[in-house]
């Protein structure tokens, strides 16, 4: 405190001017998102084309924003949609309500719903923001439909990058399983290496599993 106090404040500004800029010129340049970034959802399939969703509604039950609506139905005997007795007959997410917390991903017992790195989802009507099965479910080839066409902003390849928290630990929750793949690999957006580095030993990212 003293006579120079008003000027000392400018010192902060002056220091910032010589720092590296963190602002990205978003439309022109896109930053690489962290591995666990929570973008829009996708419904996965098994490599044989079966849907992973069994319509159990755990995602809808856990959702803090109550933005997911699921209804299950009995699998047709001759042409089952998913392995087992039941499949997700209706699947809707209201993206306007979604808070991208990924609790649905965490709750999903079959890794049917995962999040991707794509977040550009602007719409002009509220109805368009409700993603139904046709917008969420990947094709058997592993392509994910997206309501908006690719553009400078929208890189559809980001839909194939899944967020990577899931295999940080094994289903049993034991650190000893770190880096060990606990589930069958998935087509498309399911390709995720088991995450490592939770125990802080090496920090390598388990590339041998890709």
């Amino acid at each position, binding site marked *: 405190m003293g006579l120079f106090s008003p000027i000392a404040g400018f010192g902060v500004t002056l220091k910032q001017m010589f720092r590296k800029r963190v602002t990205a010129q978003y439309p022109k340049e896109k930053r690489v998102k962290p591995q666990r970034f929570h973008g829009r959802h996708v419904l996965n399939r098994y490599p044989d084309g079966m849907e992973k969703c069994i*319509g*159990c*509604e755990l995602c809808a*039950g856990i959702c803090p924003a109550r933005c997911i609506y699921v*209804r*299950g139905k*009995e699998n047709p005997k001759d042409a089952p949609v998913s392995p*087992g007795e039941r499949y997700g007959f209706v699947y809707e997410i209201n993206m306007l309500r979604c808070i991208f917390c990924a609790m649905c991903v965490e709750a999903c*017992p079959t890794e049917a719903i995962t999040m991707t790195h794509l977040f550009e989802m602007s719409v002009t009507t509220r109805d368009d923001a409700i993603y139904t099965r046709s917008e969420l479910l990947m094709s058997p080839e592993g392509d994910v439909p997206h309501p908006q066409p690719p553009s400078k902003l929208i890189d559809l390849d980001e839909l194939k990058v899944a967020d990577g928290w899931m295999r940080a630990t094994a289903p049993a929750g034991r650190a000893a399983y770190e880096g060990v793949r606990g589930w069958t690999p998935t087509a498309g957006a399911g390709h995720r290496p088991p995450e490592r580095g939770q125990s802080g030993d090496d920090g390598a990212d388990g590339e041998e599993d890709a």
Partner: protein
Amino acid sequence: MPSQPDLVTFTVDGKEAQVPAGTLLIEAVKAAGVHIPHFCYHPRMKPVGMCRMCLVQVEGPRGMMLGTSCTMPVTEGMVVHTDTDTVAKAQEGVLEFLLLNHPLDCPVCDRGGECPLQDQTMAAGPGESRFVEEKRHYPKPIPISDLVLLDRERCILCARCTRFSDEISGDPLIEFKDRGNATQVNTFPDEPFASYFSGNTVQICPVGALTATPYRFRARPWDLEAVESTCPHCSVGCRISVQASRNEALRFLGVDNGPVNQGWLCDKGRFGFEFLNSGDRLDTPLVRDEDGDLVEASWAEALDRAAAGLSAAAAEGPGRLAGLGGARSTNEEAYAFGRFVRETLGSNHLDAQLGDGLDPRVLAGITPRAAIDDLERARTVLVWAPDLKEELPVLYLRVRRAATELGANLVVVHPRATGLDPVATHTLRYRPGAGTEMLRRLADGSGDLAAVRAALDEGPVVAIIGRPGLGDDPRLAEAVMAFAAGLPDAAVLPVTRRSNVYGAADMGLAPTLLPGRVANDAPGRDAAGILEGLASGDLGGLVLLGSDPATDYVEPQQAAAALDAAGFTVAIDLFLTPSAAKADVVLPALGFAETEGTVTNLEGRVQKVNRLLPGPGSARPAHEILEDLARRMGGSIGAASAEALAAEIAGTAPAYAGITWEALSWGAGREGIVAPGPEGSQPLAVAPEDHAPPPAARDLVLHQARVLYDRGTLTQAGPSLAKLAKEPAAYVHPEDATRFGIKAGAAVRLTGSGGSAELPVVLDPSLVAGTVYVPLHLGAALGAGLEISMEAVT
């Protein structure tokens, strides 16, 4: 009354408590406020100790002993521990065992989220299993009946379903088979689990081994909104929980109401929710146009048309209009209907029954009246009534319990074998029309009936009396009641089937009654008289409230003709029934679970029904419709709301004083409140009279009675129950078959008072020779008359 049992004192986890001697430890501990996890134990069934989950430690002379609390009665000075490390370890071990073969497919299981095994594994189970081998596999799920699916992989062999079927419902169609690791629950080969009570096993299954087809994958427990209500299907009035998701009713569960259903439901009640979601529900008013077709109309247009038509008929003179129905409505709607017909239409021609019931004065004011719970104390039960298993299934369970578990004498009098016969002490059969003679012989107690008479002289006696079939004179039932009322310490339960017919009688929906069990000094026409008046032109118009005389009246064709001849008809209904289709104006009403109110069951117990669903389209509560009609006709019936009507009823009807919605919604009132009987302040007290209807001296008589799954509107509106209705058949005594030269399976043509039908023959030796039995409402309408002619069809 048995004397109060002695109390014993015991200690649980250091706390002292007192319970009646002989109480099972698990119940005693619960009374002391300690919860013991369990799977196989059910308070309404005998304990077996199958699951071993309820282990506790009891201090004994040789130290602490682990034992199952569900099989151990409390003794004086017992010291029990439920929270020791040993108990926890034992329970953890039991759960690990139970989970060895459990598939853990909780996400696809209908039970997931409300599963005792899931909950108790989370609460008391081990975190991990040491079992790494392949689990047991069975094809899953297998349908064991039209309504129930069995997944044996999930089964933990608790024997709840097998015990229920054996002990409670008396249809032991599901049983354990094989031994050791291969033990499984299953049905007998080629014998489906076709029990009227199969849904209860789904509800009490502690895992998802038994699931119900109508609910399969429809919702998860956390989707469901629930409200407690009273089953709308028959006059027993079982307490249920109505559960819905996204404004669609998805299931009914039984709620344990000790004096009435004790937790059980019949399958018709349990799966009879589907009519609420039917696409055939009326959702907009209909009026008849110039071409004679029913076309959609706005409410204002339809109400104007209805009011104009009724006003025109009313202007022709007093008593030109009539009202039928109200037996499926709430008390509030029934009361509003009574006021509408009496005040606005100015007529006393009002009936809630369709010629198939009993005298409404008997229903409302018989003395001495029995309650269902009197069966717990009865020494002798006399059932001279419809086959309870077919018409009032949960009352059948209560009578069955009295006859088996509680050891009462059971005397069943019926024209043919009934569901109760296997547990009855004495069964008597008679030909319809010869009931008076049977009653006289029974009263005499001479000869072969001496033993029956001796049994009836053992009180307390509960007499369940109704019309066994359509051919039985209602006055015979009254004569039986008069006889039964004279038995030692006797009480009479008059039974008819339609759900709120007792409430309708209490609300004055009868030609001889005014609201509140008051006799009407200027009685109007009953259903038969109304239909006759419509046909002859003595009556100018009719208002139907949830009533379908063209199907349900004892002579359907006669009723249909009367409706065709009727001047002006307004139908307020949920469906476009054959009768509503003949009306000039059809107004869509809200039904069960869509309106709030009270209903009265066959013992006079008033219970609350609650609202959960919005109902289809622009359908409205019946009392609102009636109020709007009344206002258009220049009056009001004071039906501002159902609650206002309830308050008015409590003020008008002495028996209903104090029975408010508030009292019925909380605490003990949720069990329902029995409207005080004639010994209270009630004006009408009917002592049954000993009528002697004329005997029938015919060669061949017809017995017609209802079956549980028929072609009724509500049953057919749901896909699950609709397919359970059987094809109609003629049940013929073998002697008669020989006499007429017909074989089982051959077709016969039956011609009765109201129609004829060609039916396949089933031989039924349980009939008295000279009787033909035809189930009602399965498609063969023969009329109500006793007389029948039969000829073989070649």
